[in-house]
């Protein structure tokens, strides 16, 4: 496997395409797997993902295929960019073809709805691979495909995985930072989508920048509190996967989750908002899963609760806001980090 010259991306959505685009800068051959034959043909003949990245000319090193076995064979490094809803199903298929020395990286930021398992857990359960990692951070596909500078975090317990991803992906426009806290990075990536929805609501509701900053700062506390329960490192949330991603996603129209929030304020139902986006907004599913989990574990998450009430229970924003502002005052900082002697 070490002599292989190809890397693979499973999933041809906008982020999968962006990863393939970055990889093609350094790799001789980047295979991208997707089901839709029309997009496969479009990539292979016109070098364009006509549906998810129209107008972007993809390097000729990118070869699209709908044959999963071919996509996986001979690749030492495999990125999996599949929505959380169908992640396990595809992971099971991947499991048929991968060997133990191949590295699997998830780029999906979400949880499995029924089990609350993370994407790395699903890869570990459904495939024989052990060297697994998660890529996260403020990474809008559009900006990556436009060649703008970007930073990502690769989280894995294996140094080898971190090094291989840095080597394969790092380049002129992207910096890749390593982190051993896989759980923290995955939680940060998934949870921030909820707050992006909330930010969209605040923005469209005209509640101002102060309110948005208040929400983002308290979201960080909430995220750390939640993650602490799962033995993740709260300091991970101060990094690129936490605060970095939160800033980007809560302030940009490029965020699908942010747009979901905005569309709800504009009066669309959740279903119509999702349809109008046209792509998967993971935060919608994550919101439900996290709300249920936090309730069952007794973790205090007022912003998650408030967002849930607006998105799923159709409560009015002024009513929810009033409740939120009535919560007793607390200390600003919940976690203290001690400096080494």
């Amino acid at each position, binding site marked *: *496997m*070490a*002599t292989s010259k190809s890397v693979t991306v499973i999933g041809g959505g906008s982020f999968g395409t962006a990863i393939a685009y970055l990889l093609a800068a350094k790799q001789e051959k980047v295979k991208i797997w997707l089901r839709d034959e029309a997009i496969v043909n479009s990539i292979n003949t016109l070098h364009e993902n006509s549906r998810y990245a129209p107008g972007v000319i993809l390097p000729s090193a990118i070869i699209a295929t709908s044959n999963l076995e071919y996509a996986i064979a001979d690749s030492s490094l495999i990125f999996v960019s599949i929505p959380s809803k169908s992640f396990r199903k595809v992971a*099971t298929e991947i*499991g*048929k073809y991968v*060997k*133990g*020395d191949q590295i699997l990286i998830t780029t999906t930021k979400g949880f499995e709805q029924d089990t609350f398992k993370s994407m790395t857990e699903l890869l570990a*359960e*459904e*495939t*024989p691979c*052990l*060297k697994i990692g998660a890529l996260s951070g403020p990474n809008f596909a559009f900006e990556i495909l436009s060649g703008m500078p970007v930073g990502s975090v690769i989280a894995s*317990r*294996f*140094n*080898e995985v971190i090094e291989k991803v840095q080597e394969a992906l790092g380049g002129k426009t992207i910096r890749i930072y390593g982190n051993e806290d896989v759980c923290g990075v995955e939680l940060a990536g998934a949870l921030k989508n909820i707050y992006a929805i909330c930010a969209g609501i605040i923005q469209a509701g005209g509640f101002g920048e102060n309110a948005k900053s208040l929400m983002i700062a308290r979201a960080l506390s909430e995220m750390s509190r939640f993650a602490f329960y799962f033995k993740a490192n709260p300091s991970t949330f101060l990094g690129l996967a936490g605060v970095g991603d939160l800033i980007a996603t809560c302030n940009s129209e490029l965020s699908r989750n942010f747009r979901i929030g905005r569309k709800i304020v504009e009066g669309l139902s959740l279903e119509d908002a999702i349809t109008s986006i046209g792509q998967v907004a993971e935060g919608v599913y994550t919101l439900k899963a996290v709300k249920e989990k936090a309730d*069952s574990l007794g973790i205090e998450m007022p912003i998650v609760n408030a967002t849930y009430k607006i998105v799923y229970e159709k409560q009015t924003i002024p009513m929810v806001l009033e409740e939120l502002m009535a919560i007793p005052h607390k200390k600003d900082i919940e976690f203290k980090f001690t400096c080494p002697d």
Partner: protein
Amino acid sequence: MRREDKEKATDQVIEQTLAEQKAYCKRSKDITIDNIIYDTIYLEKKRLKNKKNSKHNRTEIVFWSEMERRFYSANLTEKEEILKEIIENYAVEIAGGYNPKVYNFAIKIVPYLLKAILVKEPLWKLFSKKGKEKINKNIDISGPLDKILHLSKMGTLIVTPTHQSNFDSIVIGYSTFITGLPPMIYGAGLNLFTNPILSYMMTNLGAYKVDREKKNELYKDVLKNYASISLEYGYHNLFYPGGTRSRSGKIEEQLKLGLLGSGLSTFIKGAKEGKKRNIYVVPCTINYELCLEARDLIEEYLVEEGSRQFILPNDSSNKIKNILAFAKKTVKVDTRIAVCFGEPLDIFGNEVNEEGISIDNHSRPIDIEKYILVDGVPDFSFQRDRVYTSILGNKILKSFLKNSVVMDTHFLSYALFKIFQKKYPFSNVFKLVSTFGAECDKELLLETVGFLKEILFRKRDKGELKLGSVISTKSVDEIISHAKRQLTSYHGESVLYEQNGLFVSNDLITLYYYHNKLTPYGLEKDLNLWLHQKV
């Protein structure tokens, strides 16, 4: 190890450890051979400083003083020689022997020894045939035994039991013997080798010496290499991955990965030499209706965890009394033990099928040699291998949870303790166990046990845990009276007695120990909700 293998294996341990230490110094910018020798001598002298003046300790002091004296004037070649001598000193101390004749003789005594401890029979009946049959009834051994036996013929086993009691080695030794599993070598505390007769027996039963007071890294490396090389020679091994006995009564939550990694080392070494070595890890739980050291263990735990919040009654006569009580009571108690072997795993934590092939969760075969490739060839990788061993450790912990057998004593203690927690809302558990006594209504206990029983049955049906025979087959009334009889027969009436329609306990510490076994199963939330309506 058999005598014919022992010398060769010991030489191999010395050679391998020395080579590793030299390679480590070469690789590392910060560590030199001087550091390794000096650290070891310093820690050994510190360990010996307060030891009593025995012949063995005097010999040790002379050895380390001599090493220190030579170290200060040595050149590099001489320092390497010193390092080799230190390693040799450790390797010779650790190396155990194995004599099939002594093994067969000793293992025949074990049932009677167990009987003396567990079965309520007069001592004169100790060696009767019926006595042996009785002990078989008291030990319930379960798990995929045929599969494990088959795998033991195709490769080398590492059995990794939970560790609750000093009797674990006897119980597991007996269990492997009567199920037809092969003999295993295992690390035993150095203190067990001080008596010449016991030392002879231990050595020939396959035990090698482990001195837990030696904390230095070099000693741990020699120990690990001894285990690894014994696997290479095909000796089935037994490690307690938790390290020491569980003080709290809880199932292990964390494992010590040092020795556990020796299976992987043997596998990689074999692959590098072109040899395929099949090594199978067999998690195993040992579950006691009564743990004979329960009270001592939980007190140690409470003192350590509770800090100032838990103050142990200052009664120096307790220890002597306990020893006498122990001798007297062991012949009175008729108690049960459940030994449950889990599904065998490979050294990466994957399950293996009947043919010994590693499989994934969809029963698809896995080529595990792929895991250890570095640039296309099998090799060691320190950081990677540490993570692999940690993955294996997590799988063992999961197996422990799934295959732990909840006994009636755990069950009753859990129900009672939760009622007391609700009824006496102290700010923490340490204050609760320090109280003199607690009581609960008989009717409430019956209802609570009934409620919990239903939850436990559901969990058992989902494969989340196992239940002992009393819980599985008896009514709520019978479970309570059986568990109460067990607890009081060994730990005394103060653990639980009935008075005016109330259940009273003046020994919450012991109840807390048995209660802890059930804490990882997430029963608390449902039970608290239920108790909220009742208490």
